[in-house]
């Protein structure tokens, strides 16, 4: 055997545990079974105590077998209560969890009475976790379970995904959903039970839920969620052990995982609070800018020869502006307008963008008016998307309608706007906008 210091062992062990908790936890969380892990952890206690009373030693394998048995018994109990009485699943889980845990605590106090010899057995570690007790043999068990979990999920990814998302549909295709479900729960049970002596009954729940819930914030694909959950669990194990050298390690690991979660709530892309606020801000900005360009275009449209010089006051009166000056300055920086004291003028670039925006806007407007019921589904789309959203035939029809009213902005079609030109406002776009 390789010689490892205790700290190394603890770090490797907790990292392994964190990684696999993340993977099995992801499926549990998505299947709405977060609390099943909690129940398994609590329900394991009487099994552990009974196994100890039977075997008489604290062998990880023996105690785990006991834990697994009472865990399975608890699952059967919950399933039967839900099936045969009108109790809801969460209530049933609460009942079974506390009953089993109560029984476990009673057994534990019996074992620890002088004469039974359990006081030195250290069964307490199952309550609060004691990674410091980790032996090399325990590491081997963790590694074996970890590999088994990875192999299972690797082989049955498609099946688990289908059952978690839509088990009725899965069953209609002939998948044995009940057995797949049980298999998922069994892997959850095994991971929970090997994790018990490390982080303890109460904190094991957190190891199941936290990495999965954290990963969910970062991705919309199950595949990546599993990988991220494993990574978060692993990192929580390593970092927590290291940070909590002089603290109860189980608690330190869980607090680290919780810190990941809180940071993710704040900073995750799309779902994070900060990015949501940012996106909202950017959206408001974009709307305002589009209003500016469209207003300038429409004001110019009214004039002879589409003259593009607009008096500032006319623009100010055209609609309500929150901060027109700033908006104009930004547009000038973008190279969309030329700005002087009294007048504002669309540059060729600005003219073209304005024409495109106005066209899309008017197509939408017309579409929504003409196809009232149908359009309701599409109205939240960005105006730019109009050409991708509507069938081509309808688009042509709408364009012709606009043209007949003389309201179809002419957009230069041949040369698509290149993003490079947008970056350098000094260079003029190659094609003149149609006037």
């Amino acid at each position, binding site marked *: 055997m390789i010689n490892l210091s205790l700290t190394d062992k603890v770090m490797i062990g907790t990292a392994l545990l964190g990684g696999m908790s993340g993977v099995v936890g992801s499926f549990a969380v*998505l299947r*709405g079974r977060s609390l099943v892990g909690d129940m398994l952890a609590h329900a394991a206690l009487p099994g552990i105590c009974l196994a100890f009373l039977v075997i008489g030693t604290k062998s990880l394998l023996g105690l785990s077998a006991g834990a697994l048995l009472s865990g399975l018994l608890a699952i059967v109990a919950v399933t039967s209560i839900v099936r045969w009485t009108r109790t809801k699943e969460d209530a049933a889980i609460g009942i079974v969890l506390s009953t089993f845990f109560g029984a476990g605590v009673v057994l534990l106090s019996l074992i620890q009475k002088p004469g039974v010899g359990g006081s030195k057995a250290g069964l307490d570690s199952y309550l609060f976790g004691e990674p410091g007790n980790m032996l090399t043999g325990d590491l081997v068990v963790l590694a074996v379970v970890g590999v088994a979990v990875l192999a299972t999920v690797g*082989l*049955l*990814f*498609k*099946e688990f*995904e*289908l059952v*978690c*998302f*839509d088990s*009725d*549909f*899965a*069953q*209609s*295709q*002939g*998948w044995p959903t009940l057995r797949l479900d049980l298999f998922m729960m069994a892997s959850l049970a095994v991971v929970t039970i090997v994790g018990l002596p490390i982080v303890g009954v109460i904190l094991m729940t957190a190891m199941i839920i936290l990495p999965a819930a954290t990963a*969910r914030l970062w*991705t*919309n*694909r*199950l595949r990546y*969620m599993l990988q991220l959950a494993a990574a978060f669990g692993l990192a929580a194990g390593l970092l927590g052990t290291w940070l909590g050298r002089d603290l109860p390690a189980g608690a330190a690991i869980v607090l680290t995982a919780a810190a990941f979660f809180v940071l993710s709530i704040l900073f995750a892309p799309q779902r994070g609070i900060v990015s949501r606020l940012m996106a909202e801000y950017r959206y408001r900005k974009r709307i305002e800018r589009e209003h500016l360009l469209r207003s300038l275009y429409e004001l110019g449209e009214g004039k002879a020869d589409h003259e593009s010089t607009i008096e500032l006051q006319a623009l100010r009166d055209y609609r309500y502006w929150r901060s027109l000056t700033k908006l104009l300055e930004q547009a000038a920086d973008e190279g969309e307008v030329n700005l002087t004291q009294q007048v504002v003028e669309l540059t060729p670039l600005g003219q073209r963008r304005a024409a495109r925006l106005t066209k899309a806007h008017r197509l939408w407007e017309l579409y929504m008016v003409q196809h009232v*019921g*149908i*359009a*309701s*589904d*599409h109205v*939240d789309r960005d105006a730019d998307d109009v050409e*991708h*959203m509507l069938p081509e035939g309808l688009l042509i029809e709408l364009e012709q309608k606009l043209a007949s009213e003389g309201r179809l902005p002419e957009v230069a079609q041949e040369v698509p706007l290149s993003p490079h030109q947008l970056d350098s406002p000094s260079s003029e776009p190659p094609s003149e906008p149609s006037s």
Partner: protein
Amino acid sequence: MSIAFEIHDLTVAYQRRPVLWDVDLTVPEGSLVGIVGPNGAGKTTLIKAALGLVPLASGKVEIYGRSYSEQRNLVGYVPQRESVDWDFPVTVRDVVLMGTYGRLGWFRRPGRAEREIAARCLEQVGMSAFANRQIRQLSGGQQQRVFLARALAQDAELYFLDEPFAGVDAATEAAIFELLQTLRSDGKTVLVVHHDLQTVSEYFDHVILLNMRLIACGPVETTFTNENLQKTYGGRLTILDEAAEAMRQRDGA
């Protein structure tokens, strides 16, 4: 014409309370069938029984003359939209790919052939532009169309659709209707749980009237009558008014 779907003496009970009594019916191949009845009439249960999703207290279900478990690959299924968690971390394409899982079998992952099928089915329901969207970002009608695409990917002969028209926008309703027509012209058989009595005659050529027991089953012209609707809906006046309105519209047409 051959028989696509047949039910003999079907009784289904939830906790010893029967939901469907002694239902007997046959559906000819290539027909569009509306399943109509009041709430709690057992419409969804009928579909679930046909698909083997609920245990049968008695009776049997046959698909092209054989049991469901033998004919699974001939059947496509669109569950009610609310039956799944739309916040699940999958994209539109992932969901449609699930339609191919039944044929793929154990352990095999969907490959290029399956992705092509999925792309084609998305095209058919007009959702190609959304293939990479997370499903939560879709409107109700779009979600419904994704479910339809998934059923199309099953490449079945017989389709069961559970309330595909519920809570969808007019564009989706039109798209579904068009899709039903296409399926029929391809010789497929489609059974649809449907709520809107006014559109029954327009959308379907057969109708199953259900209220815990089978009231009537047959071609719309002869089966979707005022008398049968009375029997199906009993004394519920508002619904009967609606039905009368539907009658008028049909007779006017």
